[in-house]
């Protein structure tokens, strides 16, 4: 569809078509300009955070923007986090704390996402293949029961959960957060996976069962491999949501099970703002997701598009 170089073509455009192409070019330029503008809006805050983490106080105050041109990058922000080249070998309490929070975030988000994908996929498969009846609820009602959890705002569960967790000695534990996070992403997983399974023809399982497979055997050996991309999409979407979750983490953890967002949020007030270290911390907190976003973008898009198009 590119109309850039047509000198080598046998059929040239007529003058009228070239006039049309001038209009086409303005539209093209406009679209690219808008796209570039929005890409700039989307990426500038990330750029700003990276560069600020390498600035000294005067560079921040004077609003310098471009490293090496405007200012010389220094490891100041990363030094305070204990992650700069000089400090990486030494012991550092801030870094230890950071790494502990990081480990918490990783363990909690990965475990709850895997759990949610496992539970959610099973439920979605069951609902897309068999007919259930529980009291008055049939398949559609059970599906709705799962999906309706999406509407439930976290604040409704937060305080009862706080009191319950206190009784159960689950406050400030990873297990407590994992359970809640699993719950919060489960409806999304069910939504995505129901769509995935609905797209797989039942003849596949029927054939497997004729060959002597059980229901679960057919599910595990035939259906699961086909639905794997959908599961990865659901997993990554869950990872993003659980990694970024702040509300429950802020309410239910205090010392041991803090996640990264809580650490980032707790830094802001204290003793004036040291912009460079805040920037370094923020960037370290968003870096894993930035990497996921760049390399696994198609899975995220697949996951989010799953429900949109029936």
């Amino acid at each position, binding site marked *: 569809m590119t109309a850039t170089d047509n000198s080598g073509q046998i059929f040239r455009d007529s003058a009228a078509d070239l006039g049309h192409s001038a209009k086409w070019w303005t539209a093209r330029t406009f679209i690219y300009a808008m796209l570039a503008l929005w890409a700039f809006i*989307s990426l500038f805050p990330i750029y700003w955070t990276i560069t600020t983490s390498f600035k000294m106080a005067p560079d921040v105050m004077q609003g310098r923007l471009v490293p090496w041109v405007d200012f010389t990058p220094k490891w100041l922000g990363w030094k305070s986090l204990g992650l700069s080249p000089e400090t990486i070998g030494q012991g550092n309490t801030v870094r230890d704390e950071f790494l502990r929070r990081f480990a918490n975030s990783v363990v909690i988000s990965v475990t709850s996402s895997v759990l949610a994908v496992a539970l959610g996929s*099973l439920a979605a498969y*069951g609902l*897309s293949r068999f007919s259930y009846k529980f009291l008055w609820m049939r398949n559609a009602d059970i599906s709705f029961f799962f999906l309706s959890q999406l509407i439930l705002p976290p604040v409704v569960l937060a*305080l009862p959960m706080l009191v319950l967790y206190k009784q159960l000695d689950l406050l400030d534990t990873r297990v407590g957060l994992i359970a809640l996070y699993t719950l919060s992403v*489960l409806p999304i997983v069910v939504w995505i996976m129901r769509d995935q399974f609905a797209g797989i023809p039942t003849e596949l399982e029927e054939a497997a069962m004729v060959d002597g497979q059980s229901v679960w055997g057919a599910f595990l050996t035939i259906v699961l491999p086909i639905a794997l991309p959908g599961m990865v999409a659901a997993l990554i979407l869950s990872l993003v949501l659980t990694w970024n979750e702040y509300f429950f983490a802020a309410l239910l953890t205090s010392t041991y099970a803090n996640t990264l967002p809580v650490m980032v949020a707790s830094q802001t007030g204290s003793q004036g703002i040291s912009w460079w270290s805040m920037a370094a911390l923020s960037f370290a907190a968003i870096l894993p997701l930035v990497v996921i976003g760049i390399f696994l973008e198609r899975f995220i898009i697949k996951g989010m598009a799953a429900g*949109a*198009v029936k």
Partner: protein
Amino acid sequence: MSEGDLLHVVTTDNIGPGRITFGRAIVWGSVGLMAVVAVLQTLQSLGTSDFGFASWRPTLYAYILFAVCLCWAQVLVKGEHGKRILFVLPAALFVISLVVFPLLFGLVIAFSSWNLSSPDGRQFNGFDNLVQMWHDPFYWNALTNMVWYVLAILPEYVVAFALALMLNTEIRARKFFRVAFLMPLMLSPVAVSWMIGKSMMETRFGPLATLARHLGWDNPSFFGTGWMAKLTIMGMDAWTFIPFMMIMILAGLQAIPKELQEAAKVDGASPWRAFWEVTFPLMLPVSITAVLIRLIFKLKLADIIISVTSGGPGGATDSVTSFIFREYRDRSNVGYGTLLAMVYLVIIIIVMTVLMKFADRWMKSRY
């Protein structure tokens, strides 16, 4: 929600009476165990006797054991059919135990005065909380703010649609633009609120403030007045969530058969008319889904507000969630906070039910 293509399996089970008895036995046995543990713990918490429990965890373990036994018994008692139930049962049990129980418990808390920092403990106080809520200007203020925040979805939708339309044209470097546009969604709202709200909007040297000065705003203060602060919060929230709607709409656009748009072109429709009479109506179902889901996320809005403005200035940016969060953080007022949350839930359920009814009708009337 259609039932779809169901799998029909006919199997003959050969389940002996011993197996059924065993299945029933483990279910009732675990129920019994749970009841015994719960009764013992209740006795201890009432102070009648001490069994040395440190927390309510034994009851939790007994409950988990019961849940496992219940799943196992399905297979034991019902055989092949039980194996099918096993697909849905774990998830259902999980959701019920983490939502239904706390909600019922929450209802009890909502009608009691309970300050976690006071030694009195929970006291039932009937409708006092409701009366207090009725006279609480800050709660109503937070609810009104939510209406504004929700209305902000419409401009977000317009921007998202425009971006999706542009991404759907024949462009180069589409992958780069998609990744770039997706980025804001990946970032944690707390980091975003620091990066943008605190750093880039810093009045003296933040790049956004500098830009505002160049554009002729002498003294840029993004959180100075109530409306400005509200708009800024809306802007930051929009920044994170526009990619979400954009992707859903883009998926919808790509699912439209190209022939339809080409037919409109051949018939001599201008791009503008082709959009309004072909693309937009076709996109209506997807749009409604995207907006509804965005609405659900919008109703949970809190992180940015908590970490940037804490509801200020003067409650102008408070969302319901951030208000309740502070109600708990500052006053440890669990009872009142829970009631506010419950009322919010009721409002949400009513609004969503009405909206979904309308959405259903809209989607059907056109097709």
